[in-house]
């Protein structure tokens, strides 16, 4: 049954901004889908609001709409493009939700668009718990007992039947938002209310607790002939009770007999048929009681998911690509397996290795949020690792996380130093560890490690935390190996590398055997070095002198049964190496590792562009990365892929094997950049800006000298290593000051201090952040405009790619602020100053490749804040706004091409379209954290609005970010004293003129009245009721403008933010954002929102 001939064009929905629960895995799947459907000769129309995606590159689809993913915009696009079909299964929950809405509103019918991949009925059956429960009953499968409730009273009734603990799952929310576990009635009522509010349909499923059960997932494919296959099984190492996205998982399942596995497989197949997923990939989650094997269906997703990205990377079976082909009519047996070429895709992959995924969390960025895991997903990224055993994969995954841990303990970061502890201390440590074990946190895996080291038995760990004994035993073996290494420390000291090789003595042979086994258990050189009190380089040298080097195995979907044609590798310590070095000119590009706040999809985007550019130039390009969500780890994208941790040891092993011409470290963010120095010291050629140039940009002293020489203003600054020094510097440069540790990304631990006391407090905490580096103190430029400039340089020429003006004033992290390209409020002379400073700086640092510079403008004077000679977070946005891929150009320049060969001009000051970037925040997952923006970056993703008018671009960006501005109604305004100034008054006057009524608290009300702006005074929260919260809860407020007062938001301001979020009232926290919103609303009054594809915008 070949391809359908009645579908000639398809509209694919992307997933929009990166948020917790929906990350770049959908760029990976969507990009695959676009590519494969175009290869099939279809016209592909794409809708995605996220500019930092590969899928929104103008050459991936025929018509690319970077517009908000809402029914309103979808309908406009459909009306314009008239596609035959809509593919909603590649863009996560966002795409499914919009597709369902569009279908229910009759949009699809109106334009004769067929939903392919999954139809409305199947989506509803899978998503609506009631229908799903009914379907499972029909399929003869069990689900957890419980029921749906829409009120507290109903909730109490249900919980009386099922007992505590009870699980609360709101309907139709992302990543389990608003869900929770309640252990008593009081907690239950509280969480139920929260859950009801989180659900867009105000409904919650209350279920019996299956906490502690074993959790599994199966990735399933079905074609239209009803062939169903399982791509892989996943077992969660963390038992039920933690969201899958927050669980450490292992592929394949480890603790199932064949009969149990196939019972689950049969169930998954029945579910696919019962739900009616016509074609494509789905994932089904199960729980199994460890005591009696009772099997329960948790849920199914009728679309590709985070798990299917993981399954694709873990097996080599490209689920999204195949799913896209199935959607247009192919059957599994008609599609070849890319990897084996000669065998079809209608098989079930089998693997001969173990894959472990560990999530990465960013709790420290959200003050006041407890590090506790539950049914609501909180992780922001994940790392995955391959090993031939679970032990090896686990330790590699831990070091892939890049949180300064180099394996399961023994790296100098352990909580306890058992050797030096007294019996009493050990006893208390055991008690503490057991307490910690009972609670799931981001570091639970290390609690198990501690417990094992303290002698807690495997059975007891199972009893306390329900981790399957098999997994715990694997960890116990790692702990035992650590002990063996410790025991050998003395004899190891005696053997220096060259002696070991020469002697061949029995002692050396024993040591060889021990190190070999430790490496097979996944131990890093760093761990062995720490245990033997040597340096990592010592161990590396010793290891190599003993002939202990890794081999590279192939990910081939078939456990070596057939020849693999795809060079997709991982390292292990065994006998046979399968990775063949080519005789081509080779470049290695290091990826960015797990996503985290401050380092996400933007850097993967840059890496992928670098890969594409250098491949086009005839290089063999090798990618090294460990993030399963990304496009860069799609084996199709590169010539060769190593799925490996990004540590010196692992990367160096690959470099030694591949002998590349050079290595690119400046596209993947801070992760690879940190490796530049050690790699260079090891004799590796780093392409692009020299580490000398990087150092010159990062070393404040040297940079200061350069700046003076170039005659470019900088805010006054100093570096401090003590509290008193810090305070003295602050006095000298003048308050407020911006303080931060050196060498950080994403504004980690960055703060604006107004008083000496705050600096002292900061110095105490900052010392823990980066002990070896001093703290930087800059005078903070208040009420300044900030600019980001991205440029490319080749050592002599410099081209300005993009100049962006931030909407928020300086002080908000550039990754969090909204920005506009081209600048919206700048004079020609100032624009030219930015251009000229950028040139000077790029030349001064001898930049070869990309450079990002941050400037601030205060009272017309332009200051340079920061220079980063590497790919920046804004490169994808600039590329989308201008239509030029600067990452590609930068990569080619780094490989030696002169910039002059590209015929590029600087970005002009005026363009025929305006692009606005708006950030998206995870506050709804962290209701207790402050919503006020500051120098610490907390956004997870971004959206772009593009239009011919700035105001409309702002409106689009706001809609795309989920904060649609109201066109009329009531605004609640409360301004900080700093903001009680004429410019802000003008903004509010503007809102009043547009017909908004304004409610304000005491001070703000007085200020507005003085300015002649009509308003109604209401009570502050502390003054009694009714106050702002009541107005919000009663649905009387449509927009909140609340600018924070000074350095720390007050409690009532936090509450205001939380309540606004709960009631989904847009919340603006800066005066400049309010001004931008006003300009948007004004434009909206003058003209209607139109859609236009990037290809149309770029047309000259």
């Amino acid at each position, binding site marked *: 049954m070949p391809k359908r001939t009645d579908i000639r064009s398809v509209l694919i929905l992307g997933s929009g901004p990166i948020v917790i629960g929906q990350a770049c895995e959908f760029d990976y799947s969507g990009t695959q889908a676009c590519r494969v459907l175009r290869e099939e000769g279809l016209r592909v129309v794409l809708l995605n609001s996220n500019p930092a995606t590969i899928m929104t590159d103008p050459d991936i689809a025929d018509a690319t709409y970077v517009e908000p993913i809402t029914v309103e915009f979808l309908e406009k696009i459909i009306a314009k493009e008239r596609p035959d079909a809509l593919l909603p299964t590649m863009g996560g929950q966002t795409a499914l939700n919009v597709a369902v809405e569009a279908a229910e509103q009759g949009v699809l019918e109106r334009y004769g668009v067929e939903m392919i991949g999954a139809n409305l009925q199947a989506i509803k059956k899978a998503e609506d718990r009631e229908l799903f429960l009914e379907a499972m009953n029909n399929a003869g499968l069990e689900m957890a007992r419980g029921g749906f409730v829409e009120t507290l009273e109903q909730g109490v009734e249900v919980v009386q039947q099922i007992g505590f603990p009870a699980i609360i799952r709101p309907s139709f929310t992302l990543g389990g938002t608003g869900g929770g576990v309640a252990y008593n009635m009081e907690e239950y009522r509280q969480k139920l209310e929260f859950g009801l509010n989180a659900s867009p349909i105000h409904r919650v499923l209350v279920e019996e607790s299956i906490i502690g059960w074993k959790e599994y997932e199966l990735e399933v494919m079905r074609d239209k*002939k009803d062939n169903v296959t399982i791509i892989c099984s996943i077992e969660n190492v963390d038992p039920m009770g933690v969201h899958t996205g927050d669980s450490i998982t292992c592929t394949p399942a*480890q603790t199932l007999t064949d009969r149990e596995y196939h019972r689950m497989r049969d169930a998954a197949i029945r579910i696919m048929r019962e739900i009616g997923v016509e074609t494509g990939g789905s994932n089904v989650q199960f729980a199994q009681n460890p005591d009696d094997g009772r099997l329960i269906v948790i849920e199914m997703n009728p679309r590709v998911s985070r798990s299917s990205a993981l399954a694709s990377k873990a097996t080599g079976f490209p689920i999204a690509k195949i799913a896209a082909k199935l959607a247009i009519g192919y059957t599994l047996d008609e599609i070849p397996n890319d990897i084996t070429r000669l065998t079809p895709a209608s098989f079930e992959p089998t693997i001969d290795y173990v894959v472990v995924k560990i999530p990465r969390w960013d709790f420290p960025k959200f003050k006041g949020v407890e590090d506790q895991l539950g049914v609501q997903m909180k992780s922001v990224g994940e790392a995955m690792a391959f090993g031939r055993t679970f032990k090896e994969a686990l330790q590699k995954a831990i070091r892939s996380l890049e949180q300064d841990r180099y394996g399961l303990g023994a790296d100098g970061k352990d909580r306890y130093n058992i050797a030096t502890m007294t019996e009493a201390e050990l006893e208390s440590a055991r008690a503490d560890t057991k307490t910690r074990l009972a609670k799931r946190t981001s570091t639970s895996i290390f609690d198990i490690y501690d417990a094992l080291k303290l002698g807690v038995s495997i059975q007891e760990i199972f009893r306390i935390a329900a981790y399957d004994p*098999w997994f715990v035993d694997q960890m116990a073996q790692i702990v035992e190996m650590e002990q063996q290494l410790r025991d050998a420390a003395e004899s190891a000291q005696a053997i220096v590398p060259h002696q070991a090789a020469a002697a061949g003595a029995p002692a050396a042979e024993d040591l060889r055997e021990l190190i070999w086994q430790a490496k097979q258990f996944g131990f890093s050189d760093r761990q062995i070095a720490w245990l033997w009190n040597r340096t990592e380089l010592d161990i590396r040298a010793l290891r190599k002198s003993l002939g202990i080097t890794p081999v590279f195995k192939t990910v081939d979907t078939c456990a070596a049964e057939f020849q693999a044609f795809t060079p997709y590798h991982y390292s292990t310590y065994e006998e046979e190496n399968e990775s063949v070095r080519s005789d081509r000119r080779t470049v290695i590009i290091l990826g960015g590792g797990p996503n985290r706040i401050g380092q996400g999809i933007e850097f993967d985007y840059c890496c992928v562009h670098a890969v594409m550019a250098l491949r086009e130039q005839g290089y063999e390009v090798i990618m090294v990365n460990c993030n399963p969500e990304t496009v860069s780890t799609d084996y199709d994208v590169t010539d060769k892929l190593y799925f490996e941790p990004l540590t010196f040891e692992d990367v160096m092993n690959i470099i030694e094997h591949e002998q590349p011409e050079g290595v690119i470290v400046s596209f993947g963010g801070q992760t690879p950049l940190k490796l530049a120095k050690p790699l260079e010291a090891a004799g590796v050629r780093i392409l692009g800006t020299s580490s000398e140039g990087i150092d010159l940009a990062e070393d404040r002293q040297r940079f200061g000298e350069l700046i003076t020489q170039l005659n470019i203003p900088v805010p006054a600054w100093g570096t401090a290593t003590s509290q008193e020094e810090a305070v003295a510097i602050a006095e000298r440069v003048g308050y407020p000051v911006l303080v931060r540790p050196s060498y950080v990304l994403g504004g980690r631990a960055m703060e604006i201090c107004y008083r000496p006391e705050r600096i002292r407090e900061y110095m105490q905490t900052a010392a823990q952040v980066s002990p070896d580096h001093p703290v930087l103190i800059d005078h903070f430029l208040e009420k300044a405009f900030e600019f980001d400039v991205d440029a490319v340089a080749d050592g002599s020429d410099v081209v300005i790619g993009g100049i962006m003006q931030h909407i928020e004033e300086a002080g908000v992290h550039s990754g969090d602020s909204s920005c506009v390209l081209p600048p919206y409020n700048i004079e020609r002379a100032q624009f030219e100053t930015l251009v000229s400073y950028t040139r000077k700086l790029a030349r001064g640092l001898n930049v070869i490749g990309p450079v990002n510079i941050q400037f601030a403008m205060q009272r017309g004077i332009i200051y340079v804040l920061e220079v980063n000679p590497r790919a920046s977070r804004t490169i994808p946005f600039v590329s989308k706004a201008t239509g030029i891929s600067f990452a590609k150009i930068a990569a080619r320049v780094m490989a030696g091409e002169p910039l002059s060969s590209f015929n590029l001009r600087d970005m002009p000051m005026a363009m025929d379209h305006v692009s606005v970037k708006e950030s998206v925040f995870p506050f709804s997952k962290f209701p207790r954290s402050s919503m006020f923006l500051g120098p610490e970056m907390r956004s997870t993703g971004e959206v772009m609005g593009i239009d011919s008018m700035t105001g409309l671009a702002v409106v689009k960006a706001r809609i795309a970010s989920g904060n649609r501005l109201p066109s009329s109604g009531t605004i609640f305004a409360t301004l900080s004293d700093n903001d009680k100034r004429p410019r802000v008054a003008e903004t509010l006057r503007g809102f009043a003129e547009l017909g908004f009524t304004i409610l304000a608290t005491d001070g703000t009300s007085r200020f507005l009245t003085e300015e002649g702006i009509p308003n109604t005074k209401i009570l502050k929260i502390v003054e009694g009721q009714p106050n702002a919260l009541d107005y919000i809860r009663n649905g009387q407020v449509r927009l909140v403008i609340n600018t924070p007062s000074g350095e720390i938001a007050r409690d009532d301001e936090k509450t205001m933010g939380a309540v606004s979020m709960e009631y989904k009232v847009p919340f603006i926290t800066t005066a400049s954002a309010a001004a931008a919103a006003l300009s948007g609303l004004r434009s909206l009054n003058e003209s209607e929102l139109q859609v236009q594809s990037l290809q149309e915008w770029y047309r000259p």
Partner: protein
Amino acid sequence: MLSRPKAKLVLENGAVFTGRAFGATDREATGEVVFNTSITGYQEILTDPSYNGQIVTMTYPHQGNVGVNGYDVESRAVQAAGFVTREAARLRSNWRSHGDLDQYLDQNGVIGIEGIDTRRLVRILREEGAMRGIISATDLDEASLLERARAIPSMAGLDLTKNVTCDAPYVWASLDESGYRLPGASADLDDARFHVVVVDYGVKHNILERLAAFGCRLTVVPSNATAADIMALNPDGIFLSNGPGDPDAVKYTIETIKELIGKKPIFGICLGHQLLALALGGKTFKLKFGHRGANHPVQNLQTGLNEITSQNHGFAVDLDSLQHLPIELTHVNLNDRTSEGFRHKELPLFCVQYHPEAGPGPHDADYLFGDFVAMMQREREKMQPSEIMEA
């Protein structure tokens, strides 16, 4: 486990693998070294009589995680000559398990080797074909092991069925009380509507379980039962089982089958499929490294649907050799296009190369047992009333 004794696996081509022994570490294993790509199901594989005389390498690196239990067995003992894995679990974890893999192998007198680069081994077998090998923890001299590996008799021409067939006819009574049995397609019908004689060349218990679940009363007879013996039992149908070794080496059974063809409905699986082909005058050939695993795609040519199948065979039927007969290819392997099943267009006879009974593996082809029952039903309906009374 690192404390286990050192052991070696040596192949006839001279390849040496050094690891650690488990199971019956004082024994040695000799035989054809094969690999199986199924991730689960090691206990079923070890006890599958078709592996008699073979050293089985599991491609999935962790084996023994779920221990062993009394139900997941395909015969009464471990049949494989030896077991090869990257890592044998030291701790088992599964609510169904009753014992350790390590002890189980020890009790069954079978040696295993762990800690070797099994992927390298598999790639050798894939490139050079299945070959003879030896595992030992007592003799670690590589020259001696190589010499002994080369002295192992070749699989070709070897009648291994006599090692694994039953001694005397018996009536099958289900062993499986695990609650993990699939429901039969005709579970609502009376039990034992059909009497099936199973010719045991090394039959897997799960085949018997599935036939019973579909309403068959089973009499299992040894592989040397004559056609007359079988007909004397007056069955509704005859089932030709799976079994080890070279189909060409069991000439006597081929003669028996020739006599049975056309007399009663016949269903064959695996070796039974090959023997039917030979009895019809066709040919079989040895595959380079065989099909062993639980993920092989097979297309049912009658429905066009795919099945994911469990496979375990080193020989295959050359369908061209049956072209002169009214034989129809019904199932084809989508990986290498080899024959996976055929039927006779005129006589009540069909067979498949793969394992619809699973154990281990997917249940996609379970319908074949239903097809067999339906065939017996049709034949019964064709019979004259007098014949039914006789029956």
